[in-house]
């Protein structure tokens, strides 16, 4: 089987492509070819040995769906793709829209619907949580600079100022809100989200839903080391039934189909979990899941091919991941190939 996977940008803000490939290749039943879909000729995953067997440049989502579709068709002619696993937030809407046309070509996907993608969007998540009785930091949307002066009084500082797709800043006063607001509207546009700041420790869960509401697997992790960009650079699997049950309930209520990452904060004050985000794809630390006994990426593969998958019930508590920086050395010829021919 020929599996195409995106997100080989294993940088300091890594995409999940490399750990997805590692997970799939680590499964004893896997035999096939991994095709890396890349957006840039310097994505580190291109130059890693034993990751993707062949790599192809594809156009950025901003280039438009038709251009992406044509490129996939051209690659499909050469590689006879069986499955595409997109793994980056910014490309998911495009791939979801192309799902039926890919299916017509004989290429499978295992993705949420547009409706399901939307309910977990940063500006909609609070409503979803409210409907289902899930704790979430209260938030409001700002759609113009004037709205900054109308932030309700019950929003106490510090506040979190978030962009609609990426980025978040902690603001300690209205001036800092204004600075963050201007930075993020310039980069990501409107609306801007003002969110209650909850003090506590961060916990994340990687999970896989089958689309009917059932959880195929879920592994909770506590971040042990966080970079200045807020990325977990080390983490440990933990045992917490409350967190696990909450995660399963979210997958059930959202009828989530695909991999996902749930981001929680455990309030120091109330000791309760607050849901911060539902990321609609596996996280960059997903290799921790098969390492702890739940090969969720391979299970997604099975689900995509219509196989019956038994839910995972266990995982090893105390499994640790520590991310590393590692300089890869390559020849200019390799770079030339990908830059000129768009494949390597």
């Amino acid at each position, binding site marked *: 089987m020929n599996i195409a996977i995106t997100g080989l940008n294993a940088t300091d803000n890594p995409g999940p492509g490399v750990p997805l490939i590692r997970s799939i290749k680590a499964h004893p039943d896997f035999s096939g070819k991994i095709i890396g879909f890349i957006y840039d000729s310097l994505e580190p995953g291109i130059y890693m040995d034993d990751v993707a067997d062949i790599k192809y440049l594809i156009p950025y989502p901003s280039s438009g769906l038709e251009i992406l579709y044509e490129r996939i068709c051209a690659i499909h002619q050469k590689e006879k793709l069986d499955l595409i696993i997109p793994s980056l937030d910014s490309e998911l809407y495009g791939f979801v829209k192309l799902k039926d046309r890919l299916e017509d070509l004989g290429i499978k996907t295992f993705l949420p619907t547009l409706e399901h993608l939307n309910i977990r969007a940063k500006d909609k998540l609070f409503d979803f949580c409210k409907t289902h009785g899930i704790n979430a930091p209260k938030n409001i949307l700002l759609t113009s600079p004037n709205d900054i002066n109308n932030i309700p009084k019950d929003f106490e500082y510090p506040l979190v100022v978030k962009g609609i797709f990426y980025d978040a800043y902690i603001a300690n006063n209205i001036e800092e809100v204004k600075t963050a607001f201007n930075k993020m509207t310039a980069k990501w546009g409107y609306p801007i989200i003002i969110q209650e700041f909850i003090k506590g420790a961060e916990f994340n869960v990687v999970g896989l839903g089958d689309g009917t509401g059932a959880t195929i697997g879920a592994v909770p*992790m*506590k971040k042990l080391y966080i970079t200045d960009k807020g990325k977990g650079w080390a*983490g440990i*699997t933990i045992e*917490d039934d409350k967190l696990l049950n909450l995660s399963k309930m979210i997958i059930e209520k959202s009828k989530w189909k695909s991999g996902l990452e749930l981001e929680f904060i455990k309030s120091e004050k109330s000791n309760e979990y607050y849901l911060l985000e539902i990321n609609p794809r596996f996280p960059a630390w997903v290799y921790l899941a098969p390492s702890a006994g739940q090969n969720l990426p391979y299970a997604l593969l099975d689900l995509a091919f219509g196989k019956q998958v038994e839910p995972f019930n266990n995982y090893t508590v105390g499994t640790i991941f520590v991310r590393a920086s590692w300089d890869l050395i390559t020849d200019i010829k390799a770079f030339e190939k990908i830059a000129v021919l768009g494949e390597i």
Partner: protein
Amino acid sequence: MNIFSIPANVAVSDTGFVFLPTTGETFTLNEIGKEILRMLQQNKNLDEITEIILENYDIDRMSLEKDINDFLAQLKNYSLLVEV
């Protein structure tokens, strides 16, 4: 008399390394800390622990009781100990 217990899921290794699986937190105990935790795991009460340490270490009762109470307060604070 206070009776303390170490939650069943708290893992204590021979080296004094403690892992709390519910939060992912880890701690390192020194020799005497490790010994006290082991005695708590064996369901010894505070008086028994105090007597055993007085027998084996050169310390006066008042200082020992103060140190043990401080240590137990720390354990409780980190959810490594519950009063039953």
